[in-house]
């Protein structure tokens, strides 16, 4: 299997620093977070500009160019509900190191984000949900099939649809963790690429517990064939988990210094 992929989630408009940087078009905070994540091992950088209803197109173009020009055209996930902003971002996107990712589609109101990916030769994160919380793994698989067929009908390759089994908070919905793992395994058995927003799992838990829960959840999902994750690569425990699982799954060659690579 291929080496696990980490999509760095730290350039997110929920962060006050980032939001202010977006508003003022101040490169420094964005570049700082991009650099930290790349050095920590992120393969893709997520660029979340939020709803960005006013100046989304201009902002996304600025962000895409800023990060790619400073970091050797690192591939990006373009994260917003504003479709015009995604297309604007793709119009200035450099594909040398990989296709852009559209973050994200689902099987409900956001199904048309798959069309957006098909028309722009992009990868798309496809959330296995139609709005409500899916009951179990089987329901997730129904949404997965629907989106897969939709994408294939539009001429997409299956490998450009990265299915997210929908990571949900464990505190309150504990039974969902195993449904997520089961769905991941089923998708993996179909040869599909999978991803997910890891930190949802530990939402609402004390700060010192979150990295532990995140890491164990990730390890259990990787054992079930998870291909990638949207997470904070600056979380050391998390990256140790990724590197160790990659080694134990024989995706990377062991050496005594493997955690430092």
């Amino acid at each position, binding site marked *: 299997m291929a*080496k696990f992929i980490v999509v760095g989630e730290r350039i997110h408009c929920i962060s006050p620093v980032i939001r202010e940087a977006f508003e003022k078009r101040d490169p420094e905070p964005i570049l700082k977070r991009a650099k930290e994540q790349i050095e920590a091992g992120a393969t893709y950088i997520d660029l979340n500009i939020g709803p960005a209803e006013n100046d989304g197109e201009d902002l996304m173009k600025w962000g895409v160019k800023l990060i790619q020009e400073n970091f050797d055209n690192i591939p990006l996930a373009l994260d917003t509900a504003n479709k015009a902003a995604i297309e604007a971002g793709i119009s200035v996107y450099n594909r040398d190191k990989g296709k852009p990712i559209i973050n994200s589609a689902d099987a409900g109101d956001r199904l048309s984000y798959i069309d957006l990916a098909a028309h722009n030769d992009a990868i798309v994160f496809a959330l296995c949900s139609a709005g409500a919380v899916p009951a179990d793994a089987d329901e997730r698989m129904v949404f997965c099939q629907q989106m897969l067929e939709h994408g294939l009908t539009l001429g997409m390759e299956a490998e450009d649809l990265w299915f997210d089994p929908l990571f949900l908070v464990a505190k309150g919905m504990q039974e969902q963790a195993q449904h997520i793992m089961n769905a991941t395994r089923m998708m993996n058995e179909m040869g599909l690429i999978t991803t997910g927003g890891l930190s949802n799992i530990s939402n609402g838990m004390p700060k010192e517990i979150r990295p532990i829960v995140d890491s164990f959840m990730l390890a259990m999902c990787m054992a079930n064939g998870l291909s990638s994750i949207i997470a904070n690569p600056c979380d050391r425990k998390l990256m140790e988990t990724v590197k160790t699982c990659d080694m134990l799954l024989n*995706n*990377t*060659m*062991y*050496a*005594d*210094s493997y955690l*430092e*690579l």
Partner: protein
Amino acid sequence: MPFNQKPEKFAAKINTVTIGNGDKAIALGGESVLPLYTFDGPIDNAPKVGVEITDLGVEDIPGVKAYYEGCGSVADMAKKASEMEGADFVVLSLKGGDPNGEDKPTEDLVAIVKEVVAALGDYPLVVEGSGNVEKDNELLTKVSEACQGTNALIMSAKEENYKTVGASAGLAYGLNVGAESAVDINLAKQLNVITTKLGVNPEKIVMNIGNAAVGYGYEYVVSTMDRIRNAALSQNDDTLQMPIITPVSVDAWSVKESMASEEDMPEWGPAEERGIGMEIMGAAADLVSGSHAVILKHPQSVATIAKMIKELV
């Protein structure tokens, strides 16, 4: 159904390492395909053959002796070795420095290295230490100084002395560094990692992952090379993308199949022919498994392996 060839493509590449200077320089590696898989993609730098000589002078093997006839010094031998049919580079082994053998002083060996460097000029040179870790600390530091400007390959940095050898050959004198492990893939990778961390340019590192004579655990050599090449190409592991050099002659000529005399083993035939056979079999298998360069000593083995490479690449 017609045969539809599907080349195996990798988005990764073996590093290119240059040894020697100018027109005579050789390049190892640079390809994105499995060993000798020219049908999958180009191999711009064909594997190379090195001729080993030692500071102890000409060995008592008839064909070798005949070839170096008239050579009055190690430098003369080096010149002659560089003219051998099929030779791409010369390997000077300083095994006479081994404290458990002749224990020659470092100064004497460095003097020989200087003469050889002068005799070869730009022609690619590989220098092997005494094999003793402590002696090599001092010896290879001085040897590196004597080789400054030659773009030679200095062998070898081992786990125990990579800091001294890497710092002198790689950092102080800008030479290529051989990273030696003994048929242990995890150590081979670790050595590349720590040598690179020391500051040595990864494009100046050549791996010697160890060897064995055919029939003496050789299958471990094959599996180690296989896994290295797979990790380098299919996992794009840049800590294993260094080209591989394999000393074949040492093992090939030190097993009973090549050493037992014809008097003792009449049914085995002439000893020299057996030694040549062991060298050729070992080198051919190494090249198929992933070596970018092999080190041999008999003129007949050198010519045969060079011809094999020419026919395949």
